[in-house]
């Protein structure tokens, strides 16, 4: 039972982790915002005018101007480099425009970035979305790996339960023989073994769900602490109701399948003599 539970808990647990990382990056996915750093010699008025200009474009949803003084104040407050910054003669930070593109296609964002960087007042366009895209690609790959692991371990569960049922069939061969002698059909004789496999699978899945819940309970407070360090209110999510149902249903189904295979292979061998 524990072997079954662990075999089921592994893919389900991995899936939970992928989901959680996905939900962390999900908050960044929608915001394809990028930063436009203006040239150092661009003044306050020019920056504000440029912001209005860009905001007027069709492919731009919004523009936020981050004033260089404000940026410095933020940096001083957050970085802990206050003393070092005081040593500087002047503010090294330029004005920054945070541009939120309209629509969603990444191609148009690229084009927009290109167009904006053509302006002589713009020093650099930083597409922050690139690493988000990379993370998403990595997550996608991980998700596929979890899929493969799920299939393999699911197969493992079928075999483990199949083996358990095979042993049970051997233990009860006398009973099976008597049943066949008094006219028990294959279906009749199979049924209790199928039920047994079903319960093994369901029980294993239940234990797996408990294992995952226990693991998450252990991880919850360190994860919250880590999120707090990043100024995020991210909460570790457990199995959703539908995922839990999928786990239990999947476990039961795998158990049934394992028992089905075992009975199909081994019941026939037991015949009255």
């Amino acid at each position, binding site marked *: 039972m524990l072997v079954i539970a662990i075999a089921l808990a592994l893919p389900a647990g991995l899936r939970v982790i992928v989901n959680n990382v996905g939900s962390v990056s999900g908050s960044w996915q929608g915001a394809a915002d990028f930063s436009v750093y203006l040239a150092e010699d661009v003044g306050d008025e020019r920056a504000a005018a440029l912001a209005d200009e860009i905001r007027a474009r069709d492919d731009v949803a919004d523009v936020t101007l981050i004033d260089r003084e404000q940026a410095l104040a933020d940096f001083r407050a957050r970085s802990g480099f206050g003393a070092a910054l005081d040593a500087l003669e002047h503010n090294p930070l330029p004005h920054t425009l945070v541009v939120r593109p309209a629509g969603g296609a990444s191609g148009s964002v690229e084009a927009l970035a290109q167009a904006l960087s053509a302006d002589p007042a713009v020093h650099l366009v930083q597409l922050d979305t690139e690493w988000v895209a990379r993370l998403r690609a990595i997550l996608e790959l991980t998700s596929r790996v979890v899929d493969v692991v799920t299939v393999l371990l699911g197969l493992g569960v079928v075999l483990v339960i199949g083996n358990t049922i095979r042993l049970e069939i051997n233990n009860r061969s006398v009973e099976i023989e008597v*049943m*066949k*002698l*008094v*006219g*028990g059909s294959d279906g009749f004789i199979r049924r209790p073994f199928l039920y047994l496999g079903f319960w093994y699978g369901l029980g294993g899945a239940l234990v797996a769900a408990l294992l995952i819940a226990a693991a998450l309970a252990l991880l919850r407070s360190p994860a919250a602490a880590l999120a707090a360090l990043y100024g995020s209110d991210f909460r570790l999510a457990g199995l959703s109701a539908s995922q839990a149902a999928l786990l239990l249903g999947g476990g039961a189904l795998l158990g049934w399948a394992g028992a089905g295979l075992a009975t199909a292979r081994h019941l026939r061998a037991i015949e009255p003599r």
Partner: protein
Amino acid sequence: MIRFEHVHKRYPNGKDALRGISFSLERGEMAFLTGPSGAGKSTLLKLITLIEKPSRGTVLVNNQNTSRVSRRRIPRFRQRIGVVFQDHKLLYDRSVFDNVALPLVIGGLGPREIARRVRAALDQVGLLGRERHAPITLSTGEQQRVGIARAVASRPDVVVADEPTGNLDPELSLEIMRLFERFNEVGVTMLIATHDLDLISRMSHRRLRIVDGQVAADVPAGEAGHDWEAGD
């Protein structure tokens, strides 16, 4: 009811268990199958219960050619035959009731009908009131009666028994045989393999003697056996 026509049975190991057996048992008849050990009595019964199929010849049970019964239809075929074994073949992890009920559960009867028939069968073998007992707590003779109750519970047309008294003392053996007679009286066809010649000489039923896979003698009911029948 049961009809053998030139039946040969050769096992995969090359042993010829039956060599051209022909006989027939009419509906409602009761007969003993005798003969020395290894003569083919058990094989003959196995052909009737479709544990084995004939190598050559035809076995008809209930007008059904056993060679033509597919593997899938064997269970239904067996449901119409009651079988009593020398070693009872009871399920020792179940109560007497559940053992007798087994063929009825398999037959798909409802719980009330099952309870009714199980009690009727246990009543007939004199074990009513022991239905909640575990078979292991019963004596050998009582266990055999549970086995008989199971064989007749589904009201089969034919009951075959393989050495049903093999492990019993003469008194209990006679009791079991009288039980078979009572079932026969209500129309059940009976074929009983035994080498308890002393016992069957006290009963007047047909005797079919098998020696070396062939019918050596077929003594009708009421006739005395021959001297050469003895000595098994």
